[in-house]
């Protein structure tokens, strides 16, 4: 993965010094709260319901063992000994003290980490597929482009005070879209044109939140060298013309809709025509330099499916179930992609203790070249595990709580921190996730149900991505009481779609029953090959409505 040079280090250290200066002035009363607000947000610091929250960036989800160990130490020294993996591949601390934050940032900088632009009305952390670089259906690794975007967007002087937050995602997989590019402010799909050249299909104006939209394509093919100038053109049009009078209408999706995607695209092309040949145009050397950090590790020459693995799977049903669910195909023979699930029932989805962070660091070193990836489903990936070590790894992670074999199933729930932590939430989300996990505790049944995305957000800001869950749950406030609205049929995959609201909302204690009724409709109606989403798309919402509100 990317390693800082002197320039990167110096710029980051100066940022830490700048934030220390700003925090000192804020604590001394020289900076008003509303003046400090965007400064602290752009350094990851929220002031939350019960305590401040620090959102630490994990650029495109990559972490080294040394960084995990530093995170563990920080949670011990400055927090309550645990951290939370978010739905944007970041890490959150729930209990830091405001006056400690400059010290935390300094400790992070020592291991090339930061909390830059993880909040605020600026360009946020660029996200990508957690299987980037190791999957078979990908010709080009998206991570070097993510890193180039990271550098371009870091402290961009023109775009630090946008109308609203701005999120970019990159996908290169031909068969999947694990980065959900169509529901981002800008989504980039790496493709080749007829001449075999690398470039991007550019989606703009997708997003979740209050007004969910699947983003339209504004350019079918953007040559790779033009990436940054084109992004700059989009951002400039948005910065100048995006609405600033109403926070709820300030995202770029509203501008694109108001202008129409065609007119917006023309405006971007016009702006771009002036800047496309400026020095911001990438060079092949610049791309090569970054690509050199994402070369293949030192893979051994191995065969796929060693005999020992087959024997181990035959011997242990539990191991076999885990391999089926939590292990994915790798592009190199004899290697697999392993997902450590952080969805054990009774633990808030995405939460890890300091000890677990250190265990993950050790596992990465022992089994996967010292690197991990954080997923937007709030799990952690070991991307390069030898198949002849899978059994040993599985045995090691069972007592650690990382072997819950539910990846991609009903109980692998995406869930925001909700009303337990977040000041914005209308309702709690963690207890709902837990109640559903407890109801569906028969793993054989859960496997039989197959792939189902169940996503829970505690409010319409949609951090739990409920709109794109096959089953989405949204916390709402009804006269001071917490209720939950259900939507069905969402998907963040290549065939992205937004869920449709089922009907009136439910009290928290009703939720496990309601989910069970929905699942029963699927089980009754499915054909042999159908996933939940397939069945929903075939039969529509009415059979579900009839059963749930009967």
């Amino acid at each position: 993965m990317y390693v800082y040079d002197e320039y990167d280090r110096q710029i980051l250290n100066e940022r830490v010094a700048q934030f220390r200066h700003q925090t000192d002035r804020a604590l001394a009363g020289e900076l008003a709260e509303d003046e400090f607000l965007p400064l602290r947000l752009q350094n990851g610091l929220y002031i939350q319901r019960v305590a401040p929250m620090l959102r630490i960036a994990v650029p495109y989800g990559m972490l080294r063992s040394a960084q995990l160990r530093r995170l563990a130490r920080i949670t011990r020294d400055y927090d309550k000994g645990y951290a939370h993996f978010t739905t944007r591949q970041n890490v959150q601390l729930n209990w830091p003290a405001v006056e400690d934050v400059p010290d935390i940032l300094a400790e992070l900088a020592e291991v090339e980490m930061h909390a830059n632009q993880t909040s605020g009305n600026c360009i946020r952390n660029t996200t990508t597929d957690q299987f980037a670089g190791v999957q078979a259906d990908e010709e080009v690794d998206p991570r070097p482009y993510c890193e180039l975007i990271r550098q371009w967007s870091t402290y961009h002087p023109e775009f630090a005070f946008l109308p609203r937050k701005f999120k970019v995602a990159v996908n290169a997989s031909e068969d999947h879209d694990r980065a959900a590019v169509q529901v981002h402010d800008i989504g980039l799909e790496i493709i080749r044109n007829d001449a075999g050249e690398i470039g991007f299909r550019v989606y703009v104006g997708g997003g979740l939140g209050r007004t969910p939209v699947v983003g339209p394509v504004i350019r079918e093919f953007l040559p790779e060298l033009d990436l940054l100038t084109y992004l700059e053109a989009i951002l400039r049009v948005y910065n100048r013309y995006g609405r600033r009078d109403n926070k709820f209408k300030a995202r770029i999706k509203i501008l694109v809709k108001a202008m129409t995607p065609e007119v917006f695209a023309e405006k971007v092309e016009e702006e771009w025509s002036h800047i496309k040949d400026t020095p911001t145009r990438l060079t092949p050397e610049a791309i090569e330099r970054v690509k050199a950090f994402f070369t293949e590790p030192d893979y051994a020459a191995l065969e796929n499916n060693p005999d020992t693995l087959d024997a181990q799977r035959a011997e242990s049903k539990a191991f076999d179930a885990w391999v089926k669910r939590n292990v994915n195909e790798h592009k190199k023979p004899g290697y697999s992609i392993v997902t450590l699930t952080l969805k054990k029932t009774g633990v808030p989805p995405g939460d890890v203790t300091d000890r677990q962070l250190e265990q993950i660091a050790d596992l990465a070193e022992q089994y996967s070249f010292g690197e991990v990836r954080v997923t937007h489903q709030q799990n952690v990936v070991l991307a390069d595990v030898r198949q002849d070590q899978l059994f040993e790894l599985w045995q090691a992670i069972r007592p650690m709580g990382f072997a819950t074999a539910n990846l991609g199933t009903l109980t692998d729930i995406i869930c925001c921190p909700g009303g337990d932590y977040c000041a914005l939430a209308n309702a709690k989300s963690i207890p709902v996730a837990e109640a559903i996990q407890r109801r569906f505790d028969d793993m054989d049944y859960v496997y039989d149900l197959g792939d189902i995305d169940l996503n829970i957000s505690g409010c319409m800001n949609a951090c739990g991505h409920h709109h794109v869950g096959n089953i989405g749950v949204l916390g709402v406030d009804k006269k001071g009481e917490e209720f939950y609205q259900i939507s069905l049929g969402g998907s963040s995959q290549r065939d992205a779609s937004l869920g449709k609201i089922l009907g009136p909302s439910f009290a928290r204690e009703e939720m496990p029953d309601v989910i069970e009724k929905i699942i029963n409709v699927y089980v009754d109606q499915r054909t042999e090959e159908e996933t939940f989403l397939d069945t929903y798309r075939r039969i529509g919402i009415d059979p579900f409505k009839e059963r749930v509100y009967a």
Partner: protein
Amino acid sequence: MPDLIRHNGIHKDEWTLVPAPEKGEELTLPDGPALLPAAVWKENRDQYAGRNDIGIWFDSHEEPEHYSDLIGDLPVIAVNFPKFTDGRGYSIARLLRERYGYTGELRAVGDVLLDQLFYMKRCGFNAYALREDKDITQAEHCLNFFSNTYQAAADIKEPLFRRRAS
């Protein structure tokens, strides 16, 4: 006279910013050099031709595109930040400098605070009317917080990826 920060130090500001006139109201010029609302100036620019004591100011929603070939000789252009969180002025400044080739004094006015000075400088500003309650002695420190940057902008023509020693 209020203070004005330039890159060579702190100066007394001799320029008066003339607010946009209400409908039907006549524009009255103050004594001494004046910054006129860009639209008013454009309408009457023959009458101000050749004067080195007349400059203009843009509000954050205005479009410098409509002035591109008129502004070359102006001694001062100001860009208003109605609220420091209104980031449109950064784009206006870059357009004036990088697209329309304006080389005179470009000043930030309005809700101008210390922590935005560095970004303003990068976008092409070279004069700053810091909000009165802010400590002007800290301006130089804040203007120079970073010794290097990733992007090209009005101040540095080449992005870091072209400058890195390879």
